[in-house]
């Protein structure tokens, strides 16, 4: 069946044939891929959020930094950092840290996994929409953790008296940040409201 499609990249309207499975349509002018819904959106989101979920565990259990300050040997995980901020009565920064680096990545990963896993199920459509709304709300806050990391690193660099080794936690945390970013990027929100027949296109 022939249909008329518009290229998302250069805007050229063109006609396209049905393509066999495993093949893709490419624009006649700019040769970019033309898609009805973002390419492999569901599989990509699932894969990225699963990888992020796996990294979320060592990111929280392993120390972010191992600092050696005048012979004192201090290892700090994210949670220890937050709780020490609270004991120092830095409630605002402590809760900011908690929300941006522990709560929001976790919520986002679980939310994306929930949506992609239950997508074929006709029920819970409303729940999926709600979860998507929450993800949309916490998304900008999620970006904050990147800045927070940058601030942490600069603070560490300032203290030249201390020798600081990045722990495994910070590597895992960076992986969580990148993978959740990729998962959100590859998620096509239109999938939420597509009927099963529409999704086949």
């Amino acid at each position, binding site marked *: 069946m022939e249909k008329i499609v518009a290229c998302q990249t250069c805007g050229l309207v063109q006609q396209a044939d049905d393509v066999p499975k495993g*093949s893709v349509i490419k*624009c006649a002018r700019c040769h970019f891929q*033309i898609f009805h819904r973002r390419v492999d959106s569901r599989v990509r989101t699932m894969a990225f959020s699963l990888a992020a979920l796996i990294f979320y565990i060592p990111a929280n259990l392993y120390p972010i930094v191992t600092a050696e300050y005048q*012979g*004192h*040997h201090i290892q700090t995980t994210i949670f220890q950092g937050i709780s020490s901020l609270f004991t120092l009565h830095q409630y605002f920064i402590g809760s900011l840290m908690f929300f941006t680096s522990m709560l929001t990545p976790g919520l986002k990963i679980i939310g994306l996994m929930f949506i992609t896993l239950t997508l074929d199920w006709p029920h819970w459509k409303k729940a999926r929409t709600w979860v998507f709304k929450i993800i949309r709300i916490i998304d900008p806050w999620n970006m904050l953790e990147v800045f927070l990391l940058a601030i942490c690193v600069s603070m560490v660099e300032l203290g030249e008296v201390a020798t600081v080794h990045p722990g495994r936690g910070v590597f895992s945390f960076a992986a969580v940040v990148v993978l959740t970013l990729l998962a959100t990027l590859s998620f096509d929100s239109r999938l939420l409201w597509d009927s099963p027949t529409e999704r086949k296109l």
Partner: protein
Amino acid sequence: MNEKLPLLPKAQVGKGHLNWLLWLIPIAAAFLCAWFVGEDIIFAGPTVTIYFENADGLQEHNSLLEYRGATIGEVGILKLTKDRQRVAVKVQLDASAANIARQGSVFWIVRPEVKLGALSGLQTIVSGNYITVEPGNGERTNQFIGAETAPIKPVQALDIRLLAPKLGSLQPLSPIFYRDIQVGEVLDCRLSDDAREVVIHARIREEYAPLVRMNSKFWNAGGINVHIGLFSGANISAESAQTLISGGIEFATPADFQNAATNDAVFNLNEKSEDEWEKWSPAIPLHSVPEAMKNKSTLPNLKNPR
């Protein structure tokens, strides 16, 4: 509508990529995490528990176990034992130091110590106290009783006992001189069993051990000696600036010296010297430097470590 369609360009058909490759990302993530955990389990040495009477200065998860200046373990948690007599210190050893967990290993806490004539552990004032160890060679074990102080190394030396009516200014680490050269030191001082005199436990270094003969005379060289005589006038003498503060012992051996002193030989400590003693100058051949000391500068046999 059908007439317009041919005017539109025709989209191309290209080959799609394999989307199952995406699943390699979570698999790689799982492998990496498994490696993190595996490294912790495989490359971690055993955990040992050391019971100290006083774990003062140790910090949970922060203090280190060091041996010859290398970090070979980390202190985990500190816990009071049920009978409240000791503190159980869990130490996670590095894999390279798994051999330390043997019976006979002695663990003690290095603290700053300031004593006259000896400062030790000064680095711990800034760096915090740490645990160190003298490895043993017994069976493998994970439970140790921590020592309060560094064990006195079994060195080749001559240990003698001096009896004195009063301790005076002597104290552990007070020097022992022969012709004003330090040849040994006081290890400890205590009252004799019947409290009638003071027993001073002294150690003479091995190379100087032949100087001590059974008829050697020891006298207290600390403090200031003041002689005021009718004809000689005032005579003030002190052995050295150090002995003024920390006290000291001097000894001399007569020309007709007897056999070399044996370990735990007992001598009297005189309060002051007699002029005659200071004139004695017998010729006594000294031990040469022991062979073991010479070998210290050679590289250890790395291929066959003990």
